[in-house]
């Protein structure tokens, strides 16, 4: 008996280890149980977020917290949009503006820059590439103190411009890196044909290379958007006035200024997650390529 159990456990562990389909039923069962456990661990917080955002306050703060939904309400969401206490709409709008401007600007500078160092030869080309890779691994905390001092000196504290500049630059190494990888995979012959037809280099970039690179441009735009949407340190240090706060800082303040507004916090968290999840599921293929190619952080 014990031997048989041991053999069965071994075979189901075997599935875990090699990933191969053994014929045993127990192996199958073991695989699906592990898969279910993985998905449970990955998704439980999202489930709790959604369920709590739909639960009335009385049930959230009951003596016996539960993972199962009871009564459903949309009041947590309507409070976010109507109440005077939460400026959620303006946080959302600020984040959207900052992320859109950042991603667009980063993409334009990235396209010409990446084209330059994949296709044109100039002294210092290799140095710039290496520099991009090194800068890409640095994080905000290493420059936040001096940047704050510089922005204060130029009178740029509490402006959206401070976020546009810092976010564009912090997403730029990744944009350059993703586009450069992609441009290198494009056949040079197409560009050479365009040049022979009398296009200038710059026309070739925008009329030939850009249309050929749409998938990676979409991916680069989304990653820049996601990084700007998610950014915390710079926004928390540079922004002062309520009307300019982005979502991460805004929700943080909702949490610290009011006690036990978990329903609203969960609703706000869900609405913050939603644009990213929609983009991600819709463009999953590009995003996965981008994640694997760029090993994205942010």
């Amino acid at each position: 008996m014990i031997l048989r159990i041991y053999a069965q456990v071994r075979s189901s562990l075997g599935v875990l280890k090699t990933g191969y389909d053994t014929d045993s039923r127990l192996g199958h069962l073991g695989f699906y149980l592990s898969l279910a456990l993985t998905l449970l661990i990955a998704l439980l917080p999202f489930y709790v977020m959604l369920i709590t955002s739909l639960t009335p306050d009385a049930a959230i703060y009951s003596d016996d917290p539960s993972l199962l939904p009871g009564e459903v309400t949309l009041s947590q969401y309507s409070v976010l949009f109507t109440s005077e206490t939460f400026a959620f709409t303006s946080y959302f709008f600020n984040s959207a503006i900052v992320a859109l401007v950042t991603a667009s600007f980063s993409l334009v500078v990235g396209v010409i820059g990446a084209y330059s160092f994949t296709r044109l030869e100039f002294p210092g080309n290799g140095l710039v590439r290496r520099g991009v890779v090194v800068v890409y691994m640095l994080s905000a905390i290493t420059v936040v103190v001096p940047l704050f001092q510089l922005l204060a000196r130029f009178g740029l504290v509490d402006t959206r411009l401070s976020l546009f500049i810092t976010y564009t630059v912090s997403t730029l190494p990744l944009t350059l890196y993703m586009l450069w990888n992609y441009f290198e995979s494009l056949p040079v012959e197409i560009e050479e044909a365009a040049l022979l037809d009398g296009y200038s280099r710059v026309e070739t970039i925008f009329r030939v290379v850009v249309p050929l690179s749409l998938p990676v441009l979409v991916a680069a735009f989304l990653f820049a958007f996601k990084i700007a949407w998610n950014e915390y340190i710079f926004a928390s240090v540079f922004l002062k006035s309520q009307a300019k706060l982005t979502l991460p800082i805004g929700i943080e303040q909702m949490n610290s200024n009011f006690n036990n507004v978990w329903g609203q916090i969960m609703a706000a968290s869900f609405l913050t997650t939603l644009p990213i999840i929609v983009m991600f599921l819709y463009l999953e293929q590009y995003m996965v390529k981008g994640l694997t190619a760029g090993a994205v952080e942010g």
Partner: protein
Amino acid sequence: MTGLDQYFESPAEQREALLGIGLILPAVLLIGAVILYPIGYNVYLSFTTVPLNPDRAPTWVGLENYVGLLSSTRFWSAFSTTLVFTVGSTVLSTVAGLVVAILFNREFRGRRLARGLVLLPHVTPIIAVAFVWQFMLSPLWGAIPNMLAEWGLYSNSTGLLAQSSTALPMVIVFSAWRNFPFAFLLIVARLQAIPESMYEAARIDGAGPLAQFKDITLPELRGTITIVVLLRFIWEFNAFAQVWLLTRQVLTLPIFAYQTAFANFEQGTGAAISLLLFLVQAMFVVGFVTLFGEDKI
């Protein structure tokens, strides 16, 4: 421009080079102004005391900030907390990513959807997931402490995130949860490139699943796992938001730097901490680039 002439054989080549420089210039100027110059300026600031009023110049204090830091217990405890957090979350997220990658390395129905769902913890904004975790772990309203208490595993009413002894492990678990999809994705991509014939040959030789894992899978994954570990180490060492937004009870060096500079307004000392952080990080980045070359990341 006569200095440039010597590099080029023809005017056409020179035009290309000038265009190349022109097109990369915006990126280089931006990165120079917003990253490289501030890093240099940070070195200067770290030797000064910065007044609150931005119109007044910082006063030079020499090594004072560093001496103060290196002789304070708070700094060294933040340093060791950072190491524990970095090593713990790097190892845990890599191991979890490896296990899940192996699980996904076979055909099954709905695999693409499942992969997309597994990636969600990594792509979702930190602010959203940090607050759900706070809520789930809250001793009063959270379902998880409640469940643990019902099973008799946990009976502390102060909360897992409220005291530093339990907050640090929770932050490590949170970080591993958020980042295992990163390891998973890189590892599963590499796993799929291992030729099936290697496993067939091993099976004919009588190798069991364990032996196959040890002798084929792990050696084939070595390069990828090294990359994952190095990248995660670099990023965890500097991780700020994923610790700060979950609990205020864990003091890592990035948080120490942030609090010193922006809560206590000792920006000179804050600059000194970020410079020390930068030096450690630079060591790892240089090691990374020399190990793998700039085009293999």
